């Protein structure tokens, strides 16, 4: 067994020994296997695209990406993160998509002195009380997309809403975020088993409650199942579907197909965004990967460019942690989201838009921007954050 471990070690040494001196080392930990594997690949593709456009450099230095698979299991993620930090000596960690993996990984990574620049997961703990000088979320805080949709429906005067989400913390966060701004009547608030396949029973309950709209948060396969079945039940026309972009983005739309057309999503970015950075990104992504990018890919793309811009502003010397932190906090880059800046808790302040799912010229369902919901939206936890100096 000792031999096994030793040979495992030698093998990984061989792969890392060939790299040129002084590269920036970035650990990309995400879910690559199992049903969640699609999201990890989406994030990695967005991240890699930005690096390639940049000649595979960060802040003018060559970059080495150490990839890790967390299998959507916190303890597996923890082990992979330990390896990245201790053996590969990564300086920045990114890619993590599940909040529970983030919570298992963040503390040891930060304790070891690494930066975390999240391209996806943005748990409320790190936006609030546990905020950390070296923790940045270039993506979003979990609740904000739901807050935007709640705000929109409140402003529009929609009276009765029915809420659905999986029974896990992110599901509760999303619905809590929605209720933070929506003050109308909530005629149903249902939490289903994580990974549930069939929603016929819940949809029947929705029909019986006859609300003015349904707000749902179902990521991945759950969202595909729910939207298809909702459409088959014939409810989409009478009771409109509203969701955060994660329930209706390009990771699921191709599989849902026409069933999603007519649903509404709140988003900080959509593939139809009309700014030069975004258009360039979408075109490059489609050309390279033969599919439309999702907001997750856009976030990862932004994350890489954000890290690069910050590193560049200090001449690539990210080893100076105080300077790098400062550079990240005040980073200026050409975000695909148009406007982007960090709040004091290192979570983004960004605009939110209402989008509707329509078919594009090629007949593919996409998110089309309808109106801006909120400018410079901040998360709800920033007041709890006492950022250390």
């Amino acid at each position, binding site marked *: 067994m000792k031999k096994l*471990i030793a040979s*495992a070690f030698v093998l990984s040494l061989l792969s890392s020994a060939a790299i040129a001196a002084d590269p920036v080392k970035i650990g990309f930990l995400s879910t690559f296997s199992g049903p969640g594997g699609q999201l990890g690949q989406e994030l990695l593709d967005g991240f890699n695209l930005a690096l390639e456009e940049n000649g595979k450099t960060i802040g003018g230095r060559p970059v080495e990406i150490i990839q890790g698979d967390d299998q959507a299991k916190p*303890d597996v993620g923890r082990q992979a993160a330990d*390896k990245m930090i201790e053996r590969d000596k990564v300086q920045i960690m990114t890619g993590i998509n599940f909040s*529970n993996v983030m919570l298992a990984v963040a503390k040891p990574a930060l304790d070891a002195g690494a930066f975390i620049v999240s391209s996806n997961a943005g748990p409320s703990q790190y936006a609030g009380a546990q905020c950390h000088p070296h923790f940045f979320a270039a993506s979003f805080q979990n609740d904000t997309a739901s807050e935007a949709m709640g705000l929109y429906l409140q402003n529009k005067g929609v009276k009765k809403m029915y809420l659905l989400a999986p029974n*896990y913390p992110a599901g509760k966060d999303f619905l809590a975020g929605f209720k933070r701004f929506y003050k109308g009547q909530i005629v149903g608030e249902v939490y289903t088993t994580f990974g549930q396949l069939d929603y016929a029973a819940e949809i029947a309950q929705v029909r019986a409650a006859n609300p003015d709209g349904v707000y749902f948060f179902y990521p991945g396969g759950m969202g595909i199942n729910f939207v298809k079945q909702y459409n088959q039940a014939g409810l989409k026309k009478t009771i409109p579907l509203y969701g955060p972009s994660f329930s209706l983005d390009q990771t699921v739309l191709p599989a849902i197909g026409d069933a999603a057309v007519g649903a509404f999503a709140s988003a900080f970015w959509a593939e139809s965004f009309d700014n030069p950075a975004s258009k360039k990104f979408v075109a490059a992504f489609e050309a390279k990967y033969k599919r439309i990018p999702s907001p997750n890919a856009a976030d990862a793309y932004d994350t890489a460019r954000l890290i690069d811009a910050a590193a560049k502003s200090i001449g690539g010397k990210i080893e100076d942690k105080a300077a790098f932190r400062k550079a990240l906090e005040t980073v200026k880059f050409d975000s695909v989201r148009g406007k982007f800046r960090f709040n004091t808790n290192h979570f983004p302040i960004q605009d939110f838009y209402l989008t509707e799912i329509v078919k594009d010229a090629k007949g593919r369902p996409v998110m089309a921007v309808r109106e801006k919901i909120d400018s410079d939206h901040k998360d709800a936890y920033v007041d709890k954050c006492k950022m250390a100096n």
Partner: protein
Amino acid sequence: MAEPATNLSRLRDVVPTLLILAALAATPMVALAIGDPFIVKVATRVVIFAIAAVALNFVVGYGGLVSLCHAGFFGIGGYVVGILAWHDFNAEPLWFMSGTSDLAISLPAAILLSAMIATIVGAISLRTSGPYFLMITLAFNQMFYYGAIALQKYGGDDGLQIMSTITLGPLDVSNRYRFFYLALAVLALTLLLVGRFVDSRFGMVLRASSKNETRVIAVGVDPWLYRLAAFVVSAVLTAVAGALLAAGQQFISPVDMGWDRSGDLVVMAVLGGVGVVWGPAIGAAAFVVLELVLSSWTTHWQFVFGLLIVLIVVSLRGGLADLAQTLFARRSGEAKHG
């Protein structure tokens, strides 16, 4: 006349056990020598899963009872340590007692709680046998799993972080080397206990019951109580492994007690070989190390991993232990001829 057989079996069991423990004990020194402390973390994970797999094999390999609720006990052990530490860190009393980050208290608590739960679960599950036992234990595992998710106060699905420093009595075990040797000592104890148990009168009844229940009843023994005792012992040792996992990674989550983790433990045991006490320890090492090495090569590592498992089960009837024994036998055979 019985002596030669006994000596042979002792050689078969004791020598590999000592080799495994010695190899593990040497890993921190290797890690230090080549300057890669991460190896110690991997070795710790190997040791913890080895404890659970060896414990599970007590009922699987010797009792003929394939349990799919051992991840549940693994998680129960972890949550006892985690919850007590949470109350310690937040200085909030837990019913009548205060929280603690001392393993000298939380380990016995984990043992006690898992023993109580295992007694109830075992008493019900052991009414069934064969595949029905497999599925009823799966049902209990699902109940534990959803129960842990319902623990919203302790993080629910997000899991529970241990913020305080874990100690063992006056000893700070947050140092990875110290913690590794603590885990290794528990593995050694587990191997010793299970090794003694399977050769004892108790073990004879347990093993005979798994192969021929009718015969055991006919000589005047009701296997039920023996199976229950074995189930409880196995569950308790698994809970200790879970407690160590939580203490070592400072974190426990419901994912650690999902049914697929139960399946992983069974796979480790069978992969290593259920016929010998130390087999599952090798299986755990192979599983953990293969997973780590393969997943660093390719995102399609599960394809290779799956094929390797198929290959092993097709070619080796007694798991990796079989391979080890064959190699050992051939080498000593060659030595004799040479």
